[in-house]
């Protein structure tokens, strides 16, 4: 049955076959003739929208996808043009990008780094996407940003709030419009001090990944500077759906503030659990027990329902803003889908317009040209007031909103009220801020 004789002749033969096999791939080292990865040559250009369609951030992903479809419609000259009319740069004409019709492919990140990269790779390799955008988790955004850097396409980050995205994991091909945990901390601190005083004892529940760590760190830095004490900080896995076992220890910890460093479905569940355990009615040494959700969104507020009333948090954008850009966006989004957009939808829509505009101004889809056009770009009219894309770390600087769950909502969308618009000057930080240290943009990579 078996034949285990090893003869000299057989060893030589095997070696020759193996050698030929190893040599084979070297025939295929020639590079393609394109000047950069996926240079669009036809009459259309393809963008890749990589969003979570399953798992904890699926709601955000669905809203992001709506925003992308709206942006593509507007870029191609359909609809009412939305924010293209209020955008301070007038390079976009509604005839696609550089005259090429915009097409798109979608993918599911599953909020997992591996799946997100596989999806982005197939967009780049199979569909020929020249730009990838999306993501509703910082872990995924960082993983995909690294891939785009290697592959030589632009990555326009969607909803990603961790400092690391434009801190230690920043990449020359990646750009972020969304704000970060450092900005959340500096915007929230004065409000927390005014409402809750200077001698609180905080208990943190933190989603166990880059964003959670970053969020916890920023809030701790700012609240401890106020004089607050951090009693405990517990990490919870991202896939957790029942937080009872994490909430129970809070009751007897002596803490009088619970900080939920959770987002999306995580936050909806942990807040609901916290309320079920009676934390909101609890008194500690004569003071009301308080809950803080540093990163808020309307979708989360809707998921958590009644429970969000009076809870403070920060957000990148809210549909009730009254500037012309926000109103134009809310109007065209509302007409198409029948409800107002979330902050995730806003940042994704804006990122798509910013990319298209940068391509128009650069006159090329080459990632290096686009990056140059975006770096140090000052713009206005996209809903956040005057905004700067800082060249050193590819982070946008703009006003940050501090919001509170509304006590008497008038509709199912009117769940958050804006407490304060923290001006851009207050949330700006130096490029060499210690929480952002250790990264290197590197060189822009056009692929090919």
């Amino acid at each position, binding site marked *: *049955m*078996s*034949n*285990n*004789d090893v003869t000299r002749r*057989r060893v030589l*033969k*095997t070696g020759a*076959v*193996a050698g030929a*096999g*190893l040599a*084979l*791939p*070297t025939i*295929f*080292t*020639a*590079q*393609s003739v394109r000047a950069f990865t996926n240079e669009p040559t036809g009459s259309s250009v393809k963008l890749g929208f990589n969003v979570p*369609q*399953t798992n904890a951030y699926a709601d955000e992903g669905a809203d992001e996808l709506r925003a992308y479809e709206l942006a593509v419609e507007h870029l191609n000259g359909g609809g009412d043009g939305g924010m293209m009319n209020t955008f301070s740069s007038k390079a976009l004409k509604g005839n696609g990008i550089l005259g090429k019709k915009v097409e798109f*492919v*979608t*993918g*599911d990140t599953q909020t*997992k*780094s*591996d*799946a997100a*990269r*596989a*999806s982005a*790779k*197939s967009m780049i*390799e*199979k569909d020929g996407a020249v730009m990838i955008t999306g993501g509703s*988790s*910082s*872990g995924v955004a*960082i*993983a995909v940003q*690294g*891939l785009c850097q*290697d*592959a030589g396409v632009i990555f326009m980050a969607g909803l990603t709030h961790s400092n*690391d995205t434009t801190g*230690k*994991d920043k990449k020359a091909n990646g750009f972020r419009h969304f704000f970060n945990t450092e900005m959340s901390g500096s915007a929230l601190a004065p409000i927390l001090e005014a409402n809750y005083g200077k001698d609180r004892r905080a208990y943190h529940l933190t989603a*166990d*990944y*880059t964003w959670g*760590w970053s969020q916890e760190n920023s809030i701790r830095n700012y609240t401890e500077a106020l004089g607050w004490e951090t009693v405990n900080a517990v*990490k919870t*896995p*991202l896939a957790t759906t029942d937080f009872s076992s994490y909430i129970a220890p809070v009751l007897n910890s002596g803490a009088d503030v619970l900080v939920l460093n959770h987002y999306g479905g995580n936050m909806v569940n942990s807040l609901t659990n916290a309320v079920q355990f009676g934390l909101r009615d609890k008194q500690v040494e004569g003071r009301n027990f308080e809950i803080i959700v540093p990163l808020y969104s309307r979708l989360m507020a809707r998921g958590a329902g009644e429970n969000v009333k009076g809870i403070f948090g920060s957000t990148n954008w809210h549909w009730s803003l009254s500037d012309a850009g926000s109103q134009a966006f809310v109007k065209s989004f509302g007409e198409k889908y029948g409800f107002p957009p979330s902050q995730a939808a806003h940042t994704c829509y804006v990122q798509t317009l910013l990319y298209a505009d940068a391509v128009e101004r650069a006159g090329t889809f080459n990632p290096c040209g686009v990056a140059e056009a975006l770096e140090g770009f000052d713009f206005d009219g996209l809903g956040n007031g005057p905004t700067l894309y800082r060249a050193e770390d590819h982070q946008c600087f703009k006003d940050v909103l501090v919001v509170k769950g509304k006590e008497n909502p008038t509709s199912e969308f009117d769940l958050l009220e804006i407490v304060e618009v923290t001006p851009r000057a207050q949330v700006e930080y130096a490029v060499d801020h210690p929480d952002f240290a*250790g*990264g*290197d943009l*590197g060189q822009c990579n056009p692929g090919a």
Partner: protein
Amino acid sequence: MLGLNKKDTSLLLVVAALTLLAPFILNPFPEGSAMAQFNAGYPDLMQRFVIFGIFAIGFNILFGLTGYLSFGHAAFLGVGSYSAVWIFKLFTYNVLPAIALSVVVAGLFSLLIGFVSLRRSGIYFSILTLAFAQMSFALAYSVLSNPRFNLTNGETGLQVYADDPQWFHRDGLPDLPHLFGLSMRSTYRLDLGAWSFDFNAGYYLCAVVLMVVFYLAIRIFRSPFGMMLRAVKSNQQRMNYTGLNSRPYTLAAFVISGMYAGLAGGLMAAMDPLAGAERMQWTASGEVVLMTILGGTGTLIGPVLGAGFIKYFENIFSKINDNVLHGWFAFLPDGMEDFVVAIIHPFIGKGWHLTLGLLFMLVVIFLPGGLVEGGQRLRNWVRGKPKTENTSGKTEPAE
């Protein structure tokens, strides 16, 4: 040839031809046509076919031969990936040392887990391996990834940074995994009329590795050692009563299949230098069980077919969205079009699991021997042979 009998030689040649010509076989539709959606011949997916094929071949050495059903094989794949990425971070982007280390580390790790788990058999063994794998996942996801001691980088996944030491990295070498300067990402695109075919260096490295390990698997299947493993599957108690200690054999099979998994993990990292904790999760372990059963347990080629089948669904069906459907059915009147799209909607896009589940059920019910049995029946039907009895020697269920 190479110490194989005629039948096995031809099987090896078929596998070699399939893997080497995959860029052509998987891209049957012209680029830009409506059917191009179903093309699978792009580097990332071809690499996945082959890598998961290797993973499933290794799993089949344990499950198909000894009948020990491990529910924790993804842990070895993950460990292999992490070791490979650490080689990239510390030493060099050359893939050979990374792949070698991933095999060694996965081998040691499986020796440890196998030594403990193999004290039990049947369902208890499965549960033990599952428990170990979930422990490894929790370690990688959370415990070993805090800011003070970061071995795995948690949810983001371990990746290479510009400020990593990379002691043996020189300027002039690609800043990506490479084989002596040949970047794993370099792709030659051949345009033939409306068709285009991608020949990717990384894919061909994986393909060569697949052929080598497939050959090894054949030799194991046909060796006295393989015979001993089959004996374990058919009646381990009887073997023990004859005074033969079967544990060294099962442990060896466990370690070999763990090394195959580590090799697959190392190759995955070599194709894309990032190791995420999810690839150690129990769903990933379950996936390789599905691949093996779907393709045909205990057969040589079955696991490779099963791996290809599942990965094809995961990557192609999941990307069909409603827009694409509307494009296909645009010829129907409006109401009909929406109706048809609404019917198909749950089975595509994120519903690909549902389609796969249905197909899996059909295969298990009607083709207990997996896709391989389907192929055999088809061949018999074409040749006009009468139905043969179930090929029981190859397809008996595991205990």
